[in-house]
């Protein structure tokens, strides 16, 4: 029925004088189980379905959406999209793309809907109990998240694409107490896969590991404030790249002048050891075979050996920047119009072993992603910040002691120019619980890289 309504919307919009129409249908199911201190606190299922219509009218884009799934509402949405187009700016040129047709499905051997609700609850409960089993840990929350997403894009220039993906994961947070002090550590592991991913891992061990780390962290001091040499693990590299660099490579920010990388294509902006890629189908990452404009997602080499090679684009920004359409125009859901977003953004590996990197670092801090809570960037000024999980002070080329409350800040270009060694390992991760926020839209993303040594970052401490 959704496909039929999309076709109807397309038809109506063409009759009303639009020169291009894009109709997006979506159906999403999300299941969340929350166990709080041994008790099932929440079992929720969310079903959403609807249609988003974007029109190109008199050289301007306008968007509207509806979840009232009947012809009358679709017609109204088309009219509202046209009215929205009247106030938007004129688009000089749209990037060319090939109109593709196709159906994509992410790997899913065992469908999560074939697993009973009891089994899902019991598995989450077991993981939570294991997390609580350690002395010193008095509070623990465990969550199981399962997302099924079906998206369909049909356009007046011949695109007819659909995909279905399954994303699931388990997250756990433990709070440890010691002598009046409290510390929390949270972590999650997710994958684009079927239930086999959940079955293939010992989640009790996973949450117990988090509790052990929380018990260590609560006793740990804060790091000394100031500038430190840093070794970042793959998760932290992913976070730094996404925040500190990825956003500044998004074509809309580049074309509006809201990125410090505007006008810098072809110049050396990073250490020659740095190569950065955005890939919609990277292993371990999120699943983006095509974007919400119906562009096939291409693998983009953004930085090659330190030189800025390209930006991520949709059709409008590709036109403005004279770049190919890279398939990065993504919408949170059918209620939003697509904007330029990262998919799986990561650094490619080089030659260093982990121990070699720590030895070469000599003195500094080894920042870890486990327990990190995120990051943020001011793309215009180039300032970024992120929080790391419990991390290690490096002394005499060895890991010395654990520190907590590590917050890092830096400036985009200095940080990438300061990359002094890149490891040979590569790990890309995604999450079923969160994503990246931009312009009030949340998008699932993946990121990662190898272990990386950075000359200097500002570390906030006490």
């Amino acid at each position: 029925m959704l496909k039929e309504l999309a076709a109807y919307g397309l038809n109506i919009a063409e009759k009303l004088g639009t020169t291009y129409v894009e109709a997006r249908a979506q159906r999403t199911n999300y299941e969340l189980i929350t166990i709080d201190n041994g008790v099932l606190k929440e079992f929720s299922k969310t079903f959403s379905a609807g249609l988003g219509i974007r029109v190109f009218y008199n050289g301007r884009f306008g968007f509207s959406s509806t979840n009232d799934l009947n012809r009358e509402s679709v017609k109204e949405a088309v009219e509202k999209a046209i009215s929205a187009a009247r106030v938007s700016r004129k688009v000089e040129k749209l990037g060319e793309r090939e109109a593709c047709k196709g159906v994509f499905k992410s790997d899913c051997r065992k469908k999560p809907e074939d697993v009973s609700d009891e089994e899902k609850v019991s598995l989450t409960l077991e993981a939570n109990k294991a997390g609580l089993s350690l002395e010193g840990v008095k509070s623990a929350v465990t969550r199981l998240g399962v997302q099924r997403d079906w998206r369909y894009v049909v356009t007046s220039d011949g695109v007819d694409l659909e995909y279905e993906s399954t994303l699931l994961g388990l997250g756990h947070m433990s709070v440890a107490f010691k002598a009046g002090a409290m510390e929390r550590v949270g972590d999650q592991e997710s994958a684009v896969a079927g239930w086999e991913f959940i079955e293939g891992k010992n989640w009790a061990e996973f949450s117990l590991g988090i509790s052990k780390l929380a018990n260590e962290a609560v006793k740990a001091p804060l790091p000394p404030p100031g500038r430190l040499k840093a070794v970042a693990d793959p998760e932290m590299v992913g976070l730094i790249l996404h925040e500190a660099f990825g956003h500044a490579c998004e074509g809309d920010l580049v074309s509006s002048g809201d990125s410090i990388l505007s006008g810098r294509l072809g110049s050396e902006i990073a250490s020659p050891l740095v190569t950065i890629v955005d890939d919609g189908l990277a292993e371990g990452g999120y699943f983006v075979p095509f974007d919400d404009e119906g562009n096939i997602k291409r693998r983009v080499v953004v930085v090659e050996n330190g030189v800025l090679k390209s930006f991520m684009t949709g059709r409008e920004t590709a036109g403005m920047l004279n770049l190919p359409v890279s398939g990065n125009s993504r919408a949170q859901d059918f209620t939003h119009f697509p904007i330029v977003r990262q998919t799986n953004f990561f650094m490619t590996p080089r030659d260093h072993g982990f121990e070699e990197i720590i030895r070469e670092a000599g003195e500094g801090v080894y920042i870890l992603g486990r327990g990190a809570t995120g990051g943020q960037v001011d793309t215009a000024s180039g300032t970024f910040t992120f929080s790391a999980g419990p991390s290690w002070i490096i002394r005499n080329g060895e890991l010395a002691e654990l520190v907590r409350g590590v917050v890092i800040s830096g400036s985009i270009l200095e940080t990438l120019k300061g990359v002094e060694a890149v490891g040979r390992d590569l790990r890309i991760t995604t999450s079923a619980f969160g994503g990246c926020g931009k312009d009030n839209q949340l998008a699932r993303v993946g990121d990662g890289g190898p272990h990386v040594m950075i000359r200097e970052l500002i570390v906030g401490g006490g």
Partner: protein
Amino acid sequence: MNVEKAVKRAVELGASEAEAFLLSTAETSLTLAGDVEASKTVRMKSFGIRVAVGKSTAIVGTQDLSETGVESAVRSAVSIARVSPPDPRWVRMNERIGTSDVGETFDKATAEATPEDLLPIARELLDSVKEGCSEAKPIRGFLTSRAMEATYANTYGGPVTRRETMAFLYIDARVDEAGEVGTYSEYSIARSLRRLEAGKTGVEAGSRAREFVKAGSIPNGKYEVVTLNRVSDSLLPVMLSPAVSALNVQEGRSPLAGKIGMEIMSEKITIEDFGSNVNTLGSKPFDDEGFPTRNLTIVGKGVLNAFVYDTYTANREGRESTGNASRGYSTAPRPSLHHLHLKPGEATFEEIISETRNGVLVMSTIGEWMSNPVSGHLNATITHAYMVENGEIARPVKNGVISGNFYEMLKDGLDMVGNDTRYDYGVSAPSLKFRNVVIASK
């Protein structure tokens, strides 16, 4: 759609209790980038049903509001609850449904605004950036008008309905001068489009952007720190909202557990939750369980007075809810502040600056949401600030991390409370002055 019917249907299917929550939103917005980059209007209806079968609960949310969509949501909720392990602490859903008077929360013109209605305000915002500084460019922003209606009913009563409108604008300005770049962002938020201060916002963004072209860095060290009212607004809820939630207190995740009646902050600090204040953004006639809201003193002259409760956490302690349930359409209610209000002090902003010898006036931060409300450790990365020397604003600076224990900062560290309250959605606070704050920088 009829929420009472859904509640009845759940009971017919075997639920011992049920509650239904219907949310309608309508939004029109313009994205700005030099000019109006894009525009959209969205209407959305979402429905949630939460059921209890004995002490086992489940929630199902759907955006398919057809008869079959609602029926399948209700059936699904009952069948999940039947197989879910019981929560031994479950007592019952809210039995006291009613409303408080919070004045007019709805503006028709804002609710019905079309993209064309937003256009003159967007133009005023974009043009005023240049008024602030002729070289300044508006680089990114948005303008949104939103209307929301929520209806609640459960086995014990209802339905009750509330509606509200809100308008919001934001602009990022940039000045390029001899290879150097200065930026600044400003926003305005109000109940109605007509009350937005587009001109003032644009002028402020443009003129500040110019000042920050020449921003230097902050030397690593300890300073007197003044948080501008809008920075106070962004820091306070991050740390306090989770800490005063009765759920976090009961589950062992709040540093304030067991501290009711104790002096946790300076006596200059009084913090209220404006649940039912008239004309305050975030106040509402009833909470997300249909319980009437009220104003509540959280911290009175430095002494911790109360935590906020929903029905579940209140029942656990055999007391009444404070009317602080908050939820999405498909999530369980949780206790949360409606509008955190830090009572203003006596000092004007100018007096605070004139009392500062070696300090940093923080104008804007990012990443404050990454602070740790469990340990009480506050972190915020400064994007825009001024050095203050001998009572005068000396020069613009950027990049540095404020770090410290939030409760120590608000107790022995607190020096002055301003009278320049800024009202945002869900929070209002004045500028604050702290002693001995660590700033990590270059």
